[in-house]
C-alpha cells in the first residue's frame, strides 16, 4: 500500500504516527482510506472537493498538478506539502 507521510500538524489525528499506510489508486482514495482509520483527517486535507487552499500533494517526491486525481502505486510515497508559487 502507498506510504503516507503525515505532516507534523496532523499527527495528533494519527496517534503521533508520522507515516501510515493507506489503500487507494488515487490520492482521493488514499485520503478516504485515511479517513476510515483516522476520522477527521479528510477535512484537514480536503475543502470543497479539492485539496485545501495552499496545500499540495507530492507523490514520490514530485508535486502533482492533478491533486486528488493523481494516481498512486502500491510502492508510492505520498506527502502533503505547502503549495509554493514564486517570485521571478
Amino acid at each position, binding site marked *: 500500500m502507498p506510504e503516507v*507521510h503525515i*505532516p*507534523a*500538524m*496532523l499527527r495528533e489525528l494519527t496517534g503521533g504516527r*508520522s507515516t501510515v499506510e493507506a489503500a487507494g489508486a488515487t490520492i482521493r482514495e488514499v485520503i478516504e482510506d485515511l479517513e476510515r482509520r483516522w476520522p477527521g483527517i479528510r477535512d*484537514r486535507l480536503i475543502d470543497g472537493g479539492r485539496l485545501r*487552499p*495552499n496545500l499540495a500533494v*507530492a507523490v*514520490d*517526491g*514530485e*508535486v*502533482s*498538478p492533478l491533486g486528488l486525481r493523481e494516481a498512486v502505486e502500491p510502492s508510492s*510515497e505520498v*506527502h*502533503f*506539502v*505547502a*503549495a*509554493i*508559487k*514564486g*517570485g*521571478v
Partner: protein
Amino acid sequence: MSDREYAVVGTRPVRHDGADKVTGRALYGADFQAAALLHGYILRSPHAHARILRIDTSKAMVLAGVKAVVTAADFPQGPDRMVDLGDGDVPLSYVRGNLLASGKALYRGHAVAAVAAVSRHIAEEAAGLIEVEYEPLPCVLTAPDAMQEGAPLLHEDLKTRELGEPTDRASNVADHLRFAMGDIDAGLAAADVVVEREFRTATVHQGYIEPHAATALWNNDGRVLVWCSTQGAFVVRDVTACVLDIPVSRVKVTPMEIGGGFGGKIPVYLEPVAALLSRKTGRPVKIVMSRKDVFEGSGPTPGSYIRVKIGVRNDGRITAAQAYLAYEAGANPGSMVVPGAMCIFAAYDIANVVIDCYDVVVNKPSTAAYRAPGATNAAFAAETVVDEIAEKLAIDPIEFRLRNAAKEGTRRADGPKYRRIGCVEVLETMKRHPHYNTPLEGPNRGRGVAVGFWFNIGFPSSCNLSVNADGTVNLVEGSTDIGGTRTSIAMQAAEVLGIAAEDVNPSVADTDSIGYTFATGGSRTTFATGWAAWEAAQDVMRQLKERAAKLWDADAASVTAEAGVFRSGDKVLTFRELAARLDETGGPVVGRGAVNPKGVGGSFSGCIADVEVDPETGKVSVLRFTSVQDVGKAIHPSYVEGQMQGGSVQGIGWALNEEYYMSPEGTMLNSSFLDYRMPTALDLPMIDTAIVEVQNPGHPFGVRGVGEANIVPPPAAIANAIYRAAGVRMRRLPMNPPAVMEAIWKQRD
C-alpha cells in the same frame, strides 16, 4: 551532468526582442496611448494605521477637468469568499481592501481613493481636495512587536490558525505552522557542539526599474480591456474579473513589455481601479505609479526575525536543526514564511528537524513575492550558523557543507525526498573554482561562502506554433518576457523543429489569443512554457511528416526528420521546402502545446564573496564575487548567466544597503532611489558565474529554472566574509556602515 549536444539549445543567439529594446521602440506599461485617454491618480493614506471615518469627494469632483472619483464603496459589495488569484488562496475582502482601503488604512501609502481627469496634474490636484477624516491608531511595524500580547490589532476579525486549526484567538499572527522530522531532543543530545543565534532582516523592495502602470477601458459592450505591466496577464484578468464581479471572459488583458518584476508584479494594484474609473467616465483611464507610490503602495518582501539552533558532532555531521521564523506579512496575511521554513535547512541531510513559522501582519504594505520568496531571509540565518560551526570545528566551510549536503534520496524537513538534485555538484564546483583557490591577501579582507535552495514551480502554460510558407515559424505564448524568455522558449521549439532560433518568431499574446498561462514567476517560464513549446513543436513535426508522406505517397511512419530535413527512402525535403508546399497537402500547419507539468526540478545555488571592510567607516566593498548554480540545462547560457548575476546583485543589495527605513509612526523615510540604495555597476565588481548542469529528468531538455535560487546565498556569504575581514558576526540585515561599525565597536569594548 548534462552531456547531450544540441543544435540550438545551449547556444547564444541574439534575443528576438533585442532591437526594439535597445532602440527604445519597445512599448512598456506607461507608453500606452489611446484616444480620449484620461489620467488617474491614487490618493494614499498618510497614516500607517487609521480608521477611515469619512471620505468627502465633492470638492474634487467639481474641479475643472475631473471626470470621476472612486472609493472602495464603488466595488461590488457582496459576501466575502476565498479566491485563488495567482499567489495562493486569500479572502476577496483582502484583495479589494488592498486596492482601495475600506474602513481602515493599514499602512502608510494604502490607496484610499482614485481620481480620473484630463491630465495627471489635475488628477493629483483633485486628489488633494478629497477630504478624508482619519482616526489615527497605534501602529506596529515588526513581527516580534506585532506578536506581543496587547499589540495593536490590524484586523479585528483575524483569528490565528494554530498548526492548521482555526482558533478563537484574535491576534496579528495569521498562521503558525510546524515542520518536524525525527527526534529533535535526541539529535541535540547527540551533538558535541550546539550553536543557537538570532537574526533580523529588513523589509526590502524588488526595485524593478519600471513602476506599475495600467490602462483600462470599460467598453460599451461590457468588456473590460486592460493594457499593463505585469508578470501574469491571466492573473490580472482573473483578479480584475473577480474584484469587479464579472466573468473572466469579459476581461481582456494585453501585457505590455515589462521593466522588471522579480515577483512584485504578480499582485494587482491598479487595473480594477482604472476599470472602475473607466466605467464611470466611458473613457480609457491610465494610472502610473511614481517611485514613491511603488515603495509605499506595492508589495516589498517581508522583514523577519529568525532563530536557528544547530547541533553537530565533532566529525562534522549535523545531528539536529531547529528554527523559529516570524515574517512580516505586511497589512494582510501571506508573508512567504512557509517557503522560507521549507528552504531553511534544504541544503542539508539532517535527520532531526523542527521548524516553527509564523505569518504576522504589521502596518507595512502587503508583502509580495521577491525572487525565491522567503528563502533569502532563512538562508542568511542558517548559513551564518553553519559557517560559525565549521569554524568551531576547524573544517573548511565548503567541506563542512559537503559532509552534510542533501542529495538524491535526502528527505527535506517538509517531507518529500529529493529526486535528482545538484547540491553536491554546486559545492564541488565552488571548491575547485579558481576564485576559492586564489589566496585573498591584504588587511581587512575576508572571504565567505554560502549555499541556498529554491523549489521552482510548474503550473499551466500554453503555446501555439504556425508554419509560414518561407520556412519560418510564428510562436505565440502567454508568458510575459522578463529575462529573455521569448528566446529561451523559441529555442526549445527550434530544437525540435530542426531550424534556427532566428527562424522562430516569438510573441507574447493577450489573454484572448492564447490558452491560460500562469504568471512569469517561480522560475517556471523556460521550464513550463518551454515545455509547451516543445509539445507544440512535436505536434508540428507530426503534421509535417504526414504532409511529406502525402507528397511522396508514402506511409507517414516511414518519414524521419533530423536537423530540419525530412526523409523517406530516397526522398528528401528540407523544412523550408516542405513549408512552401502546405497548401497542396491540406493547408496550414498549426501546432499546439498546453501543459500543466510535473517534473519540476529544484535548484541549488552557491556563492563565493570577497570583501574588504573599512575599519574606520564600516563600509563593506565587494572585491570579487562568484555565483554557482545548478540550472539543469542552460537553454541560452547568456541569459542564465544574466539571471545569476542579477540575483547575486540583488542579494548583495539585501546584504549591504537595502531596507525600508521606517519612522516610529510607520512612514518610510527613504522612498526614492536616491535614499533607497540599490547597488549599481559602479558599486560592484564583475559577477563571475559558473553554470552547473545536473539535468532535471522531469523536463525534455533537463531544464530546472534559474531565476531565483541565486539570490538566496549572497547575504550569508557576505556576512561570513565580513566576519573573516573584521572579526564580527553580523546577524542583522542590512550590514550597512553604521551596523558594521556598531559591531566593531562592541567587539572592541
